């Protein structure tokens, strides 16, 4: 039976997902510039794996394969995951991560729209738990490898003659190590930390993409702003109290995956809350968790765990933050 409305905005899920991918482009370009073509290799590996895994699972579940492959959601998961992985990580690392994300975290829960957890973050968290050493090999801007050498390293772990190993930590990692050695934060931050500027540029790229998505009305402002506020709310007083132990808020906002997380990960509609107040609460608590795990926990960066922990709370948040209906505000009905 056809019934009203007979008009609909031409936006479709595919358009939404394609725009999210487009919004990632500035960050991707900057990543490639600073970290090398390894990033592109990771993206390609993740995309291919995601599409294959999605198609296989759709077929196994008896769903129309073409329809759902075209929605682009698998690609978004793949890209977010690839961008969170170490650029020079081994090829199988990103492949396993993506397959895990698509098969376990998305399709086994019922596919598009039904996953309670952010698939990319599930994939990432699984890898960091299973392969902590490999996940810590963050290639840096000072990696002295040419493009072919990077690819050779990704696919064969082959290093050119003269280089024994590439083990470079992220700024967050480095900060933690130095701190444990007794070096005050200020000193560490003052030295020309490798990769710090790069990370900040890439974060700025993500920020730009996220702003565009917001302007396109594809992401709400509440979640990202609340998440950044959550990080800053803890970072600022602690930094003011003891700058020797705690980095400044700006460092935290632009370090690691904070910006990627704020713009693209906490804004995942499927696994996030739907009410405006719920989004504020969700975002803020993710931000708080990110800071807590980063500074006091065992992992250098923690977007994945923070988001996954808060994903658990989403149904509760949604339930308790349901706005009153029209006319109920004064009438006392909730």
């Amino acid at each position, binding site marked *: 039976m056809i019934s009203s409305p007979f008009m609909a905005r031409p936006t479709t899920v595919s358009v939404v997902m394609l725009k999210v991918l487009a919004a990632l482009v500035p960050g991707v370009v900057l990543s490639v510039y600073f970290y090398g073509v390894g990033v592109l290799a990771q993206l390609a590996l993740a995309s291919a794996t995601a599409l294959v895994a999605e198609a296989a699972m759709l077929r196994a579940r008896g769903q*129309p394969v073409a*329809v759902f492959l075209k929605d682009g959601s698998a690609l978004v998961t793949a890209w977010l995951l690839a961008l969170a992985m170490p650029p020079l990580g081994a090829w199988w690392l990103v492949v396993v991560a993506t397959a895990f994300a698509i098969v376990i975290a998305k399709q086994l829960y019922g596919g598009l729209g039904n996953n309670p957890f952010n698939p990319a973050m599930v994939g990432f968290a699984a890898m960091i738990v299973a392969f902590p050493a490999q996940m810590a090999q963050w290639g840096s801007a000072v990696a002295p490898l040419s493009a072919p050498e990077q690819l050779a390293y990704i696919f064969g772990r082959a290093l050119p003659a003269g280089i024994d190993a590439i083990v470079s930590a992220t700024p967050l990692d480095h900060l933690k190590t130095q701190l444990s050695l007794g070096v005050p934060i200020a000193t560490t931050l003052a030295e020309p930390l490798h990769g710090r500027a790069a990370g900040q540029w890439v974060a700025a790229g993500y920020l730009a993409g996220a702003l565009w998505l917001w302007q396109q009305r594809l992401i709400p402002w509440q979640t990202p702003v609340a998440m950044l506020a959550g990080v800053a709310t803890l970072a600022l007083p602690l930094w003011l109290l003891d700058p020797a132990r705690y980095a400044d808020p700006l460092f935290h906002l632009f370090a690691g995956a904070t910006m990627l997380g704020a713009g693209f990960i906490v804004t995942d509609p499927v696994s996030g809350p739907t009410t405006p107040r719920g989004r504020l609460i969700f975002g803020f608590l993710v931000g708080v968790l990110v800071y807590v795990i980063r500074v006091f926990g065992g992992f250098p960066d923690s977007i994945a765990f923070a988001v996954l922990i808060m994903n658990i709370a989403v149904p509760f948040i949604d339930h308790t933050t349901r706005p009153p209906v029209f006319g109920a505000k004064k009438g006392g009905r909730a």
Partner: protein
Amino acid sequence: MSAILTAIALMALIALALGAVLGYASVKFRVEADPLVEKIDAVLPQTQCGQCGHPGCRPYAQAIADGVDDINKCPPGGEDGIRKLAELLGVEYKPFDEGAAQPKPRAVAVIDEANCIGCTLCLQACPVDAILGAAKQMHTIIASECTGCELCIAPCPVDCIAMKPLEPTLKTWKWGEPVIRIHPVEDTRA
């Protein structure tokens, strides 16, 4: 050894105390009527037709509650009714027995008033007093109160009662369940 004895004694004491509390509670908060029968009765369609082999819906509810009868004996309740009973009682859904009465579209009885001889037999058969009339007077059925049980049809000596299916009207018509086109499998989760 004494530790074990102490533990046993302690457990026994706790058990006693809790038992006392439970016993007291069961007396104090005793529910008079059998709520299960009420709940089952609330699910039954109240046609009082006796197709289940019981004289009315409540006796059937009692029989289900006592475990004497099955949940698939009520054709007016339809398969939906069996599902509700199954859910209420936590048992498996069970289709209607083959050969047994099957659900029919909802209908009301109508008396052909030209042929009615005013024998009052149908009045006595109607379980919900939905037939109006007196001896030697024409009878008529209050359609809004008729449950469609068909119990009045058999007693009529002149066969002037017929069942008329209920047609939807502008007031009772409702929108059907939406079908998402294209993805037939998508709905299997629901």
